[in-house]
């Protein structure tokens, strides 16, 4: 019970610094809507730009898989393919 109270108290106030976050504009290309809808809930999209353009197709596939399998991102198989294709074509090597 005590643990529960602590957790609830800790979650009462959201992280204020997020308020100053500026939009990260990714390249306008097919799949961008899917990327924005699936990825930006958990992290800002500058993670994608920062990790470019060095990833090859296999590495971008592995990153998308990691987000789903390791971090629990609720992304459908169809959307995962659209996201991976977008990353490979626009931020890959």
């Amino acid at each position, binding site marked *: 019970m005590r643990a529960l109270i*602590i957790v609830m*108290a*800790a979650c*009462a106030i959201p992280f204020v610094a997020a308020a100053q*976050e*500026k939009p990260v504009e990714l390249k306008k290309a097919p799949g961008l809507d899917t990327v924005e809808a699936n990825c930006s809930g958990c992290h800002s999209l*500058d993670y994608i730009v*920062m990790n470019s353009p060095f990833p090859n197709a296999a590495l971008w596939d592995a990153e998308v898989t990691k987000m789903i399998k390791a*971090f*629990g991102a609720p992304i459908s198989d169809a959307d995962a393919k659209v996201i991976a294709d977008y990353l490979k074509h626009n931020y890959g090597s």
Partner: protein
Amino acid sequence: MLTRRHLITAGAGLALGGSGLALNSRTAAAAIDLPAALPQGTRNNAILDALPGKKPLIKLSYRPPNYETPIEYFRTAITPTDAFFVRYHLSNIPEVDVRTWKISVGGEGANGEAAFTLDDLKRFPAAELVAVNLCSGNRRGLFQPHVPGVEWGYGAMGCARWKGARLKDLLDKVGLKKEAIEIVFDGADSGVIDKTPDFIKSIPTWKAIEETTLIAYEMNGAPLPHLHGFPARLILPGWTGTYWMKHLTSIKAVTKPDAGYWMNPAYRIPLGRFPLVARFTSQETATNTPLTEIVVNSLITTPIDGANVRMGPITIGGIAWDGGYGISTVEVSSDRGRTWAAANLGEDLGRFAFRTFSYTLSPKVRGKQTVTARATNKIGQTQTSELIHNPSGYNHNVVHSVTFNLA
């Protein structure tokens, strides 16, 4: 022609001071002089940006916030709190209400359980020390070939004076079973969705009960700021920052190795590739080990790479650090490593602190001059000349060089 790099070098102090906030915009990307070895996307993406209560730092990601310290702030052994790097793994970062906050201490490896408020923590005998907090992935962006992750340059580190209670004093209140092999830490931050593994870390019990392992509530003489772990965080001098849990809520003794994502597969290095003394045997596998000690390292902070310098004697300045054995020498080479000369070491703030160094170079010819620094610690460990590549980009301690123009 006056290039961007020259402008930056000339105005570096100014840009980071009063006028820094003016650079807090999308156009600021043009004003940061980032290492050429970073991924091009990192160089395009990074801007100077000020988080609440902070100076403009090099923003690599907004959410979770990952901001590194510009090199100019490493000219002193203590890194100013408002210029100290910020690193989070997960985006849900609540501001803790200290009126309701407690650290719970217990676990199946403890004989009892207890909870401590901030006032309780302050009633334990206070310990104070100066220690480097260094992200395991500092300089990851310089890896060739590149590896994915937060593409840090040189600034995912800082050195502060920390004050707090000794962890062993808290553990003594509950008592450890002799089978307790690890102590596990959780903080208030978490993922946005439930399925994201909470950021939880463990350390060996032998390390947890060292005199220098603290639950700190002060940083550089003031309460820990939110972004540095208010109300209390783990201070694990000599070990990399991954263990320095912020916003601590829970400390548990366990009799089996913690099996969470952030202990395995995250934060692993190949077994036997680095000359580390401290081992974390309960977590070792046949092929890899969690990170432990900070590798011996140094950074040249004066002059800045690419600077224009007037011909004549010039001071080469910087800092050196290691995993707590203490720096014995820093050497400087002006002929790309053929010969080395000992630098003068600055004030000793303790074996876990940055140690400043300086060396006066008397150049004979004008033009481009490259200098390299190399630190050695008291057990004879030194920096590498070639990168020890590893899949996640940890423990980069290749000797640092800067090239400046003597005019």
